[in-house]
């Protein structure tokens, strides 16, 4: 267990020192990454990109029925 905790501590120190000693450009791109991920997941995904089939149909059976309807070229539409 001691060895495992030592490994964890070393891993933590590795990332901690890495982020701590990051150059200016590194800090700038991290700010951009965080803003970008926030916009993508907290705004775009949440408000603009719901899963169409999950939102409109309760279960997979209904979803497959709907898609079948969309796929089939019914005889009414034959040329």
């Amino acid at each position, binding site marked *: 267990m001691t060895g495992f905790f030592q490994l964890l501590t070393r891993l933590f120190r590795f990332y901690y020192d890495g982020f701590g000693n990051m150059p200016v450009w590194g800090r700038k791109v991290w700010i951009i*990454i965080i803003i970008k991920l926030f916009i993508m997941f907290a705004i775009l995904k949440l408000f603009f990109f719901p899963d169409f*089939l999950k939102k409109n149909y309760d279960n997979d059976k209904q979803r497959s029925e709907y898609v*079948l309807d969309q*796929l089939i070229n019914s005889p009414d539409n034959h040329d």
Partner: protein
Amino acid sequence: MIDNIDLTLVDWSRAQFALTAIYHWLFVPLTLGLSFILAIMETIYYKTGKEEWKRITRFWMTLFGINFAIGVATGIILEFEFGTNWSNYSWFVGDIFGAPLAIEGILAFFLESTFVAVMFFGWNKVSKKFHLISTWLVAIGGSLSAVWILVANAWMQNPVGMIFNPETARNEMVDFWAILFNQVAVDKFLHTISSSFLLASMFVLSISSWFLIRKREMFLAKRSILIAGVFGLLSSLMAAYTGDESARTISEVQPVKFAAMEALYDGKSNAGLVAIGLLKDSEKMIGEKSVKDFIFKIEIPDLLSVLTAGDKDGYVQGINDHVSGNENKGIMSVSDKKLRGQYASDILLDFKNGKMNYSSEQLDSINSIFRDKNFQKDYFRYFGYSSINNPEDVIPNVPITFYSFHLMVMLGFLFILIFAMALYFLFKGKISENKWFLWIALLSMPLPYIASELGWILTEVGRQPWIIQDLMPVSKAVSNISSGSVITTFILFAVLFTVLLISEVSIMVRQIKTGPKH
């Protein structure tokens, strides 16, 4: 129903996907290619122990880091769009698309959280050997991660290794290896990787040329040009070879796309390869679409027949062969394919309606039809044609397909020349004196980006009207959502990606001007 989906929605959904994919692809190839250049540079440092090579590696690693960080996760937006805008398609493709994308996601996550961190944080903290291995793993892992995306895209161009389940309305993977080693996937991977290597080499050559023009960092610039020149020349030759292989495969699995690439309407033997050409609308029509004719062209006699059929007398199929059919060459017309597709569609309708009043034996019997190999080969593979209204609808936009292909090829030959010249001047010891060449190399930086994007435009526009070749037209794939919401998100993406791109360019330019640490 599908008839209520207007073209505006289809067009905006396509435009939105194109916009996000094009922006995403501005970041990806540099990451794929530059990681290998870094690995080569660091290997030289490891072997020679010379600090100059460490400095060179760390400088390019900074630029790699900026590009990697700005580009990371931009591809996830495409997955958002699958669920919202392309729900019929997402459902229909089932696990065939899901499995490769999941593997790609897991691979990318583990690579990015471990070995990229070692690359940037690990200098002087881990052994030289472990650091070098990490850099190579980032390079190899990045390419492996690209495999899965390209496998998924290749399946859309040439669907193999699956059967359709009418119960779930989804395709199910039955032969993983057929999907992985789909000839289109193999060609696509090799061509994409080699063109990404080429793009990164041009990036290094261009920035190094700028240093030489400014008479700064002469050692770094010349050593970088050596690596970029050799790697770039080999990659551009490989891109030409794999591009040729890819075109041959397209002529077999997507013959209409291939004919559009050459604007070849009437199939013929001894077909010449159009090196350069300009198209115009002619008075001839195929249904409601006008036939494109050449205003002028420079043609290499017989070469198209030689490249596709391996023989100058070989027959190259034209667009008309596929629209109207050609019995002598065993090519089915669109009308015949539509009849077959409609037969498959009618059986699917029978299955759907029968769920209410058929016995389970009757339903099983219909279900088994979809598992029958002959039915799959002779009928279901034409399923998408049941939704094609007019035979000419299977013709993609010929000018876009033709020009994107020819421009890409011309640029490809230009890259071979530029890398060869860079190496020639470097070995002659005259690279710094030839300012004109340095300026050409500097100004060429955007050209591989343009060529790479043109390649994707050719791939996707040339495939129209299909989202999955012969199985599903784009019009059947879109979700029935309001086009207003698609327009809104299109604008949001355009703004977001433009801001990201400006950020990347400005941070990168500042780092280039700063130069490597001394």
